[in-house]
Structure formats: structure tokens, C-alpha cells
């Protein structure tokens, strides 16, 4: 059967000879000399992903700086909304934990500073940690923050430290995504910055939306226990589910 296919294939190319200038029979002869083509979907997908990244970098390098900057801000934003659902939950976890706006701002700042540090270090290849471990701990960090919300009424002092530590991990997560996405070599630092700016915008947007929704629709304060406990529980359950999924 195989051979019939090859012969038919050859006939096909012969008929199309006016289209192919390069000796069409070479295909048939190549089949005889090299054997049949082997399609492996996994391999094809892998090659496609790498090609997409190359294409993105080529296209970026041809763009004016402002456009590139905008694209990376956008990419950073999109890595929070809608792609970074785990980061969204983490930030929401922080949101529901805080009694005051001041506490919230401090925690978010600690988180931001931390993930910026590791994002920059990891993107330059200075820090590396296995992706699956990072992902699992990120899930765990969500559970931690949410559970803490349920157990303690007030945020403890060492909480900032823990948020900072988790921030370092989330930064590694962003970096992994960014490397997949690809950074142009000639504007490395500025695009890294742009990406980070986008991430911050995304984060702020999450907080803002949460604030507005609760204020507008429920006409309640976000630190009310009526919302804080069930919301945190939900977040904890989802985080736990991810943790199990990522470990198993």
C-alpha cells in the first residue's frame, strides 16, 4: 500500500510540474532513500511553539520602541488578566486579609518589590528553579494567605515577610512565562521593565475591580467577615486543588 501511495504521489507531482520547479521526483526518490515521514504531534507542537517565539522576536525587533514598550506592558497585564488566575487569587487573598487600605498597600508593595527582583534576575538567567516546583509553591502560597485570613483577625507583623517571600516565587513564575514569550535582545532591560509595569497594572486592576464590585454591588466593606471568610475559603480551596494538581 505504501508504495502505491508513493507512486501516486509522484504522479501528482509530475502533473504539477509546472508549479514545482525543483525536480518533483526527488520526493519519491527521497522516500525510497530516507524512508517515510513520521508525524509526531507532540514534536510538531514543540517545533511550532519555538517557531512562534522566533516570529514574535523578529516582529518585535522591527517595531518602533514605543510600540514594543506598549506590547510588553500589555503582555505583562495579560499575564495577570486574564491568564494569571493564580496571581489574581493571591492578590485577592491579600485584599481580603486587610483591615485597612494602608496594610493592603504595604503588602502589595512587598509583593511587587519581591516579584520584580526575581523576575529581573531570572529573566537574565541569574536565578533558576524548576518550573513545576515554583508552580506548586505558588499554589500553596494562595492557600496560605487565604487560610491565614480565616484564622487571624488582624494581619501579623511577620506576614509582610511571608508575602515578600511568596513574591519572590511569583516573580520566578512570571519569568518563566516571559522566557516562553521571548524578550528581544537589543532592548532587554527596557522590555523587562515594561513587562513588569504591565504586571503591576494588572495587579492594581484586580484590586480596583474587587474594590468597586464589593462597594457597588454588595454595598459592604471588604473587610467585613461576611465576605472575608467565605471568599478566603473559596480561594483556599481552589489553591489547594491547584497544589494537588501540580504535585500529582
Amino acid at each position, binding site marked *: 500500500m505504501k508504495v502505491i501511495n508513493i507512486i501516486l*504521489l509522484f504522479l501528482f507531482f509530475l502533473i504539477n510540474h509546472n508549479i514545482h*520547479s*525543483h525536480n518533483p*521526483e526527488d520526493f*519519491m526518490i527521497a522516500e525510497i532513500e530516507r*524512508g517515510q515521514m513520521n508525524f509526531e504531534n507532540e514534536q*510538531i507542537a514543540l517545533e511550532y511553539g519555538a517557531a512562534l517565539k522566533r516570529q514574535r522576536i523578529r516582529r518585535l525587533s*522591527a517595531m518602533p520602541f514605543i510600540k514594543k514598550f506598549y506590547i510588553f506592558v500589555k503582555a505583562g497585564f495579560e499575564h495577570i488578566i486574564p491568564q494569571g488566575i493564580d496571581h489574581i487569587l493571591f492578590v485577592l487573598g491579600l485584599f481580603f486579609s486587610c483591615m485597612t487600605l494602608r496594610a493592603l498597600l504595604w503588602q502589595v508593595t512587598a509583593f511587587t518589590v519581591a516579584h520584580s527582583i526575581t523576575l529581573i534576575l531570572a529573566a537574565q538567567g541569574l536565578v533558576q528553579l524548576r518550573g513545576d516546583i515554583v508552580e506548586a509553591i505558588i499554589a500553596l502560597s494562595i492557600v496560605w494567605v487565604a487560610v491565614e485570613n480565616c484564622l487571624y483577625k488582624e494581619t501579623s507583623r511577620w506576614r509582610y515577610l511571608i508575602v515578600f517571600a511568596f513574591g519572590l516565587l511569583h516573580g520566578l513564575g512570571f519569568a518563566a512565562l516571559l522566557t516562553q514569550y521571548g524578550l528581544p535582545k537589543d532592548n532587554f532591560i527596557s522590555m523587562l521593565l515594561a513587562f513588569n509595569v504591565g504586571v503591576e497594572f494588572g495587579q492594581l486592576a484586580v484590586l480596583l475591580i474587587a474594590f468597586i464590585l464589593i462597594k457597588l454591588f454588595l454595598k459592604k466593606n471588604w473587610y467585613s467577615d461576611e465576605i472575608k471568610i467565605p471568599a478566603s475559603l473559596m480561594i483556599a480551596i481552589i489553591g489547594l486543588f491547584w497544589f494537588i494538581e501540580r504535585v500529582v
Partner: protein
Amino acid sequence: MKRLILITVLLFVVSCQQESKMNSTINPFFQEWNSSFQVPPFLDIKDEHYMPAYEQGMKENLDEIDEIVNNAEVPTFENTIEELERSGKLLSKVGRVFSNLASSNTNPSLQELQRNLSPLLSAHYDKISLNEGLFNRVDAVWKNRKNLDLTSEQSKLLNDTRKGFVRSGALLSEAQKERISEINSKISGLSTSFGQNLLAETNGFELILDKNDLDGLSEDVIAAAYDAASQKMDKTDSDEEKEKYNNKYVFTPHRSSMYPFLTESTRRDLREQLYNSYVKRGDNNNETDNKEIAAQIAKLRAQRAKIMGYKTHAHFILDDNMLKTPEEVYDLLIKLWKPAVKRAKAEVADMQAVAYAEGHNFKIAAWDWWHYSEKVRKEKYDLDESAIKPYLSLDNVLQGVFNTTNKLWGLNFTEIFDIDLYHPDARIWEVTDKDGSHLGIFIGDYFTRSNKRGGAWMSSFKGQSNLDGVERPIVVNVCNFPAPVGDNPALLSFDNVVTLFHEFGHAMHGTLTNVKYGSMAGTSGPRDFIELPSQLLEHWASEPQVLKSFATHYETGESIPDELIEKLLNASKFNQGFINTEYLAASLLDMDWHTISADDDIKDANNFELASMKNVGLIGEIAPRYRTTYFAHIFSGGYSSGYYSYVHAAVLDSDAFEAFKEAGDVFDSNLASRLRSSIYSKGSTEEAMDLFIKFRGRKPVIEPLLKVRGLDGSE
């Protein structure tokens, strides 16, 4: 507020769904392509769109033919030949996209489609080429050609069109036509068997080795052989078969498996075994033997040629080529043969010296060639590929080839970033002429991937024509260069660079073309001519001045050192005796098989081959590139009496480049513009030999080729 959001979201979802539904029902082949430069809308084309478009395309094509045939007016050039040119637009629209993607970005469903389409298309084109009414009209125009005041391009088109019908048998009697179709179907059956047998024979032999049979083999080769054995294990369910391959190493007569083994293995007995399995394919006196089949095919072809009014099959085939008679082909081959064999004998002597020095006392045999030539290569022509690659990043090489055509013809290439192609590795440029006008579109798809066929080729997504307004072409080069690792740039070998220039030469032939009738555009010329524009461009790649201009180190930015260039160019002379001898032997064998007369009865294909090779004086250490029983190019493919084309084109390109050498400037502007006006822009609007003479001022000579290949006795 809530409700408002809900309604908006719902509306959005519904509209999205409708849009996607609409997309799946519209077949892009039935629409005008309004994309910039009419690049096919690849993202909208789905596998299921091809078949309906093909069916509709064939139907429209036949309707158009009927219309031409049933035209009540007297046949004229305009209402017959030009209308024929205009016909089949949809078929060509879908055919170009499909035949390209079925090679460069294929999948099992496209391959299946290809198998189903093949007999349909072949029947379709038969309906046209055997249409008597159509031929009568064409013939009527042709008979009246003296009174028509045609341009030279038009009269060539008229002649070619008529000739196509005649070569399909239009002038024969009914009885003769019947006999031809009988012969054709016999030949096609035999060709199929030939290919089947060859594949069975190639797959049928394997050298299964133990750990202690691997002397001399490198780690990569051993790993590949081990993988081959594991794959065999995975494919079988029987325990016995599994045991056979368990922890073993498999080599086969596939070239990719055989050559590394013959080169590296120090086990002479095993080299002999594998080599013999290769050269004996189709010659084992079993049920898959090809000797009888080959002889029958040759005889049937001779009979067909006789009915068509030609002396032999070679005469019939060559009538359409640049070299017109077997005498011209033989003359060329024999002229090259002597220096090639002389050089090959010197190579044997070099290898023999190495073998003696190693303390062996055997005579170098055919299965020793790869092993000992590699030793000679290391000694005389050693070239460290890894030292060269950093200078040859794909982007640099592309810049190099663009600059070359810029210096020759003033072309400019502007990469386009906002058009999506069929794969993200495919890149697209607009080509503009020296006055800034649009010339065409160039697509380059360079990296290897699992859904691309092997090898390298040029093709087009849109042809060139000036019949109804100006249509500029979209051409594509497809190669199989290794993809870059990680974020590093893609680094090419020098062989890759030559391939890139070669395919780019075809692309220029397809881009600079400027003819009225699409069927004569670009690369439509005879087989022994169309490799001239491609092979010619290769010469610039090896020109030190050009190489130095683009080969800069991707990290340091330094130009390639002179010493490395010298080594590189020297290495191209390695083993030329062998390469040319085996190739010429096969070309001569091809010619011998196709100059037999219809009455010749060849009893034994092996004796025929032996006599043919003895006649010309082939040395025992070399077999023809293809022996009769596995010469698929000529017995199963379309190369009969055409295998010589490669070297013929090489004669042409070496001689053409020599003109630049003689001028003392590889970018001499007069020569460059003559090259463009007489060859690259002309398609097949004139006889190929006339085109060459227009450029060179005389017929081609072989001396420049001998020099390029180191066969001029200077080595």
C-alpha cells in the same frame, strides 16, 4: 447595571459564535483574495476546503475548454491560444496552495488528499490533452501562423502548445493512438512495480549488529543504529522479533544509514556486506527483481517513440530539451568522462597508499571508498565545520544573498511583518526593482520540522503574467536547515549556504520573469536548462569577496579569516573524481537504455549494464550512482534520458560565471544586466540555447566546469 452587563456579554458571545460559523462555511478559494499582494489567506484555509475547490476548479476548467472548442468563430490566436492560457484559474489557485503546503506543512489528512487527487487530476488533464476538437482548433491556428503577424513570444507559445498535443499523440491514427495508450498503461504498471520492488528491497535488508561489531563507529552513529533497532522492536508484537532487535544495532541500505557506516566502520567484512546489499537491490533473482522490468520498460518506450516517429526514446525526450539529440548528450558526457575517471584513478592511488601505510595489503575495493576517502580528506582537505558555522548565521547569509542581487540588479528586499503565513518560521519579503517598483513577493521557509518533506526546493503561490494586466509573482524557497537551539541564531554549514543561494537563484528566475503568457513564465523551461539560474547563483556564494562581506561572526562581528575561506574552497575539490565518475556512469547508462531500437531484445539487464560500462571504461572501484535495478529516476520517475541534465546545467553555469571572471568583476554591470535581460527575465519565451547564446555570445564550453571541479589536471 447588572442586567446591562449580562446583555452585553450575551450579545458578544452570540456574535462570536456566528462569526466563527460563517468562517467555517466560506471557502477562501471561492473568494477574491484582497490581502496585500494577494498572499493566500493561509489562516482561513482549512484542510476541508481543498477538495471542493479542486472539484469546482476542474469543472470550470472543462467548461472553459468546451467554450473554446464550441466557439462558432474561426479559430484565432486570441480565441484559442490566449483563451487556453486564461483557463483553469481556480484550479491553479487551489493547486498552488495545496501542492506547496502538502510538502512544506503537511499532515496525514493532506497526504491522504494527495493520494485521492492524483488519479482525478491525471484523468482531468488527459481530457484536455486528448481533446480532439481542441487540438483541431490549435492546429488550425498553427497552420495559419504565417498570416498572423505574431510576436516571437506568441509564436513560441503557439508552437509549444501544438507540440504538447502532438506529443500526446494528436496526429496519430486511431489504431496508433490505441497502441500508444496500451503501451502507456503497460509502462505505468511496470513503473509502479519497479518502485514497489525497489522499496521492498531497500527495506528488506538489514545489518543487525552486536556490541562487538561496532569498531570505528562514532557515538552518534551507534546511537542512531541503536534507535533504529528499538524502533523495530516497538513496531513488532512478536516476542521472537523483539528478541531479534533487543540491544542490537541496525544498519540498512538507506543512504542515511549506510554512508556513515561505510565511512567509519573499520570492519571491512561488514562494509562489504552492507555495500553489496545496496548495489544488489532489485538484482537478487527473487520475486522483487527489477532486471526484467527495466528491460521491458526500455523496450516499450522505444516502441512508443517509433510510433511517434522518433528513432529512439531519447530522441523523443530530447526533442523538448536544450540539447536536442542523443549525439549532443553523448558528446558532452564523454568529454567530461575522461578527466573524471583520470581523477578517480588518482584518488584510488591516494587511498591505496593510506591502506598500505596502515599495513594492509588488500586492493581498495568499492566498499572501501568511503572509509579511505575520509582518511584522505582529513589529511588533505581537513575542514572543521564547527569553526565555520559561527560566521554563517541565517540572517547574515540572507543579507549576503540579498546584497548579491542588489549589486547585480539593484533589487531591494523589505521584510513584511504583518502578514500571517502557513507557519511562523516562514518569512516574507517584498522585492522591489532598482527604480523602486514592485517586482514580486519572496517567501523563505528555512528550518527543518517534522511536517516538512526533506530536501530543498523552490515553488510559487502565484505566477507572473502580463496577459490581462500586470500580475507579479509570489515565490517561495523551502529548505531543511537545522533550527536554532534556544535563543541563539540559526547557524548554517557552508553546504547549507550553497543550497540557500541555489534555491534563491530559482527564486530570482521566478521573480525577475517578465513575460506575457503565464505558462512561459519563470522556471517553465526545459529540464536541462532550469538549473542554470539556480546553480549560477551558487558561484557568488563561494566568491571570497562576497563571502567575506556577509560571513561575520555572530558574537564578535569579525569577518571570516582568509585562511578559513581558502580551506573551505579547497574542500570543494575533494572526491570530485568519484562524484563525477559515478554520476556520469549513471547518465551514460540512462542514455544507453534509451537509445535502444524498438526491435532490440535485451535478454539480460545485467549484461546490458556491464557491456555499457565496459564500453566506456568504468573502473571496478566505482559503481554507477544508480545501477539499472535501482535507477528509480529513470524507470519509475520522470528522468529518462534526462539524468544528464544536472551536469549539463553545471556546464552552463560554470561557463556563464566565467564571463564575469573574464570581465574581472563578479558584479560587472553590463554582464549583470545582460544576464537579466537574456536569461532571468525570459522564462521559456525563446529556445534555451538561444537565450544562453544571447548572454554568452557563443555556445557553452566545458572547460570552466572542469576547472571548478578540479578535473582540469591542476590537482
